[in-house]
């Protein structure tokens, strides 16, 4: 298994990912799944600047991710998968056999409420995550490897 982390984080490539997780799991490749960014060279160029030289980065859409996922899990490159929001996660999980999801950072929006200092979810997003959880996907919130992982049930008080 070489997909080490599937993470929802609206900042996508940033310090917690490349230093915190990248070094803890010894990451070699970041796969950024986002339909918008996958078709925008200007945005890709900026995100690429955030990637350290010892990692590679790939930008794919959800449908491309679906067909590429089997290859990621067998070809041995230690990979972190990043998605910006719950909607993308739901779409990705419906086309790829994801077993574990890390909530790393979802921030302020009009109808979102604070569940953790770094996880803000709307009622709809919470329901979506519960559905995924009911399908057997383990969902925890954890911003950095040295923090405690918090189960989805504990986010919804």
């Amino acid at each position, binding site marked *: 298994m070489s997909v080490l982390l599937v993470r929802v984080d609206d900042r996508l490539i940033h310090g*917690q990912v490349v*230093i915190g997780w990248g070094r803890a799991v010894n990451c070699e490749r970041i796969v950024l799944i986002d339909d918008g960014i996958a078709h925008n060279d200007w945005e890709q160029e900026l995100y690429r600047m955030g990637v*350290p030289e010892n990692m590679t980065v790939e930008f794919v859409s959800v449908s491309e991710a679906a067909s590429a996922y089997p290859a990621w899990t067998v070809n041995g490159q230690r990979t972190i998968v990043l998605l910006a929001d719950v909607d993308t996660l739901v779409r990705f999980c419906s086309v790829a056999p994801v077993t574990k999801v890390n909530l790393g950072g979802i921030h302020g929006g009009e109808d979102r409420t604070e569940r953790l200092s*770094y996880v803000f979810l709307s009622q709809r997003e919470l329901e979506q995550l519960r559905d995924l959880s009911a399908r057997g996907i383990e969902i925890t919130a954890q911003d950095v490897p040295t923090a405690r992982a918090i189960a989805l049930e504990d986010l919804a008080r």
Partner: protein
Amino acid sequence: MNPELWLLLLWGGLVGLDLVSVPQMMIARPLVAGTVAGVITGDPGSGMVVGVILELFALDILPVGGVRYPDYGPAAVAAAYTVAGAPGLLAVGVAVVLGLLVAYAGEWSLLALRRWNSWDVHRHAAQLDAGDATVMRRVHIRGIGRDAARAVLLTGFGLALADVVRRWSFISVRGAVLLAAVMIGVALATATVGTLRLTEGRRGITWFSVGLGLGVVWVVAR
């Protein structure tokens, strides 16, 4: 209160404010905060020693993306006051423990501050999203004011605690030396683990080992 304590309170407020808010020049690092506090108490040597030990603890912190972290600046100020004038390493262990306690309290105070700022932002969200520059300036400056108050209160708490500890001999000489020794051990381990955590792959570990080797050679050669 004597002028020395007022100065320490002011210095603690400045270093506490420096950590997150203004101007982030890292006078908040215990090495600087503790050494300068030592100058204020008239015992710069002891201030520097506790500053160094707390600096080792602070090397554990990687403040990426708004994670929680202890506040070691006011902690180093309180520790420097605890240790001032005490002979040798006798008070160092106690001072470091007190520093850790204040740093930990500081972590909680930072969380409370962030919540308070959130509340203020929420209350004025409509005006902020309408682009009202006056409201934006006021909310922002209130945040800085709160952090300054937080830093002074935290330092005051630390100094009060230190004052009690200075008057109360609750530990034997043997116990005090043991405490200093184990705190030095934990501090060095914390710095080692913290540095390994942010060191990149095999290349980083190699450079870290080369550094360790050079340090050991230096120590042996002396």
